[in-house]
């Protein structure tokens, strides 16, 4: 079967996001207004919101997080989009990526020339146990939940399988956290604008203030190894292996390729888009990889006519630290079992040959589920346009990729962007 293609090219001409973090008193509507304004400011030559034909939004579970289902028309309303079509896509943590897919499809189909794509989630109004329960509804409620699996638990199980086969250790995961926090410290929109060293200083200052003995660690790794500073959540995963509970929103403006120059001289073209669905964890034959990512990547690379080595900017779905390592193998950046070595050798750091998650990733930037896949694109937008400030990659990159997983990897969306 020959690969099918979109009938019409699609360009990204604007991208913005709210800050990610905890924002009491703000609903998804308010957060999305922040993202929309940030996106508006990013459109070089401006645009008239009345020209937006349709809206596609990613949201995992506002119905459970804030008691508001049916968010599409409310969010559309918050930014004045009624009576335009508005549809919410849900695919757990890949809801944002799925919304992007729908936006691309709308333009390619001819029904729309300009589309607003958004993602949003408001998680911090709920206590942690409730958040855990809500996230768990994305695992298999018939066979995984009942066994006692949580989301950290499912990814921890993948980690044990990977570690057993390839020799990675808990230290590997700590080094992912270290790296992503280094990057996130340079991202003003990140939930934790802090390096691991900053967390050490915070703990020390806090002890000092309370008149308690000031804890000392030899270095960042010693801090991460210390079970009091970095307790186990679901072995082998510790606190600093988990992305946080977050509020946030992100917004993109997509237009037909041939209209892009009306809005900017530096559009990004969405040259590859792959989506794949897969089975629950117990149905997989190999627990050291995520097949949907390989499949979505294959489709996207084929459409874009590029190969993994061509990608210069890359945001992967590091909901947990080991997931990032596995993602870099699934996407073909490293061979099977080589990802953890590449990580430990610093190759995925900002100054490595294969930088990953320059934004800080979900780990440091934050993981407001439905917004995450859209937020990844905001980083690619900035990096490919040379607007990433202190964390800007050198070499005038022109090709970027986003990798957005849903649940325990039962859905993956991969997008490839090019500045031509």
């Amino acid at each position, binding site marked *: 079967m020959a690969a099918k293609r979109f009938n019409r090219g699609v360009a990204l001409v604007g991208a913005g996001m709210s800050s990610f973090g905890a924002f009491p008193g703000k609903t998804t509507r308010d957060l999305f207004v922040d993202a929309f304004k940030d996106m508006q400011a990013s459109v070089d030559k401006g645009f008239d919101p009345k020209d937006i034909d349709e809206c596609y939004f990613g949201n995992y579970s506002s119905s459970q997080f804030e008691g508001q289902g049916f968010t599409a028309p409310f969010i559309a309303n918050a930014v004045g989009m009624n009576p335009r079509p508005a549809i919410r896509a849900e695919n757990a943590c890949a809801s944002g990526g799925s919304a992007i897919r729908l936006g691309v499809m709308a333009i390619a189909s001819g029904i729309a020339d300009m589309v607003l794509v958004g993602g949003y989630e408001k998680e911090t109004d709920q206590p942690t*146990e409730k958040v855990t329960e809500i996230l768990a509804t994305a695992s298999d409620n018939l066979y995984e939940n009942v066994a006692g699996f949580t989301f950290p638990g499912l990814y*921890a199980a993948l980690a044990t399988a990977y570690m057993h086969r390839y020799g990675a250790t808990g230290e590997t995961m700590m080094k992912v956290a270290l790296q992503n926090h280094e990057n996130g410290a340079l991202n003003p929109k990140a939930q934790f604008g802090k390096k691991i060293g900053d967390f050490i200083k915070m703990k020390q200052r806090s002890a000092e203030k309370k008149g308690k003995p000031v804890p000392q660690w030899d270095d960042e790794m010693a801090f991460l190894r210390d079970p009091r500073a970095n307790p186990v959540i679901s072995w082998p995963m510790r606190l600093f292996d988990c992305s946080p509970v977050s509020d946030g929103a992100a917004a993109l403006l997509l237009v037909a390729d041939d209209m892009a120059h009306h809005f900017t001289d530096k559009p990004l073209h969405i040259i590859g888009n792959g989506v794949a669905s897969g089975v629950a964890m117990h149905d997989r034959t190999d627990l050291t990889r995520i097949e949907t990512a390989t499949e979505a990547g294959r489709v996207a690379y084929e459409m874009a006519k590029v190969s993994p080595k061509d990608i210069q900017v890359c945001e992967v779905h590091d909901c947990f630290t080991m997931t990032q390592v596995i993602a870099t193998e699934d996407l073909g950046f490293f061979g099977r079992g080589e990802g953890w070595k590449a990580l430990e050798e610093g190759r995925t750091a900002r100054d490595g040959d294969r930088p990953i998650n320059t934004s800080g990733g979900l780990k440091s930037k934050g993981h407001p589920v439905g917004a995450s896949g859209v937020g990844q694109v905001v980083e690619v937008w900035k990096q490919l346009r040379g607007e990433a400030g202190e964390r800007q990659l050198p070499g005038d990159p022109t090709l970027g990729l986003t990798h957005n997983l849903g649940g325990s990897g039962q859905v993956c969306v991969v997008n490839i962007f090019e500045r031509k």
Partner: protein
Amino acid sequence: MSKDFYNAAGFYEYVDEKKLMGTRCKSSGELFVPPRPFSPSCSGGEMEWVEMSGKGKLEAFTVTLYGPTRMVEAGYGPKNPYCVGIVRLDEGPAISAQILGLDLTKPEEIKIGTPMKLTFLERTEGEEKKTYIGFEAT
């Protein structure tokens, strides 16, 4: 009679009787654990229930300190963690289950590939006792 559905309801009816059952497609012979009422590969198929031997091997696991409400209600928590994993049955399919009989104070010594045998466990949820499948290191 949920067993006529060849689905999760039938599966858990058997679990209550302490049986681990899958479904087999009468036309293609494919075995499904967890059960399926429909055989995608041959687009249909009448199903029958088949009992599993209950033997298998540990394929992945985690030792969880912060579990979902049902595990907290059953007495688990940071001071009493539990192990949950995926066990590949000798018959081929794999399934998620609570794992018993391992030293959870030393998770780094738990080995992928450890032989497992089926057991059944009861957890108190709210006011009910519910039966679940578990596996034990042999």
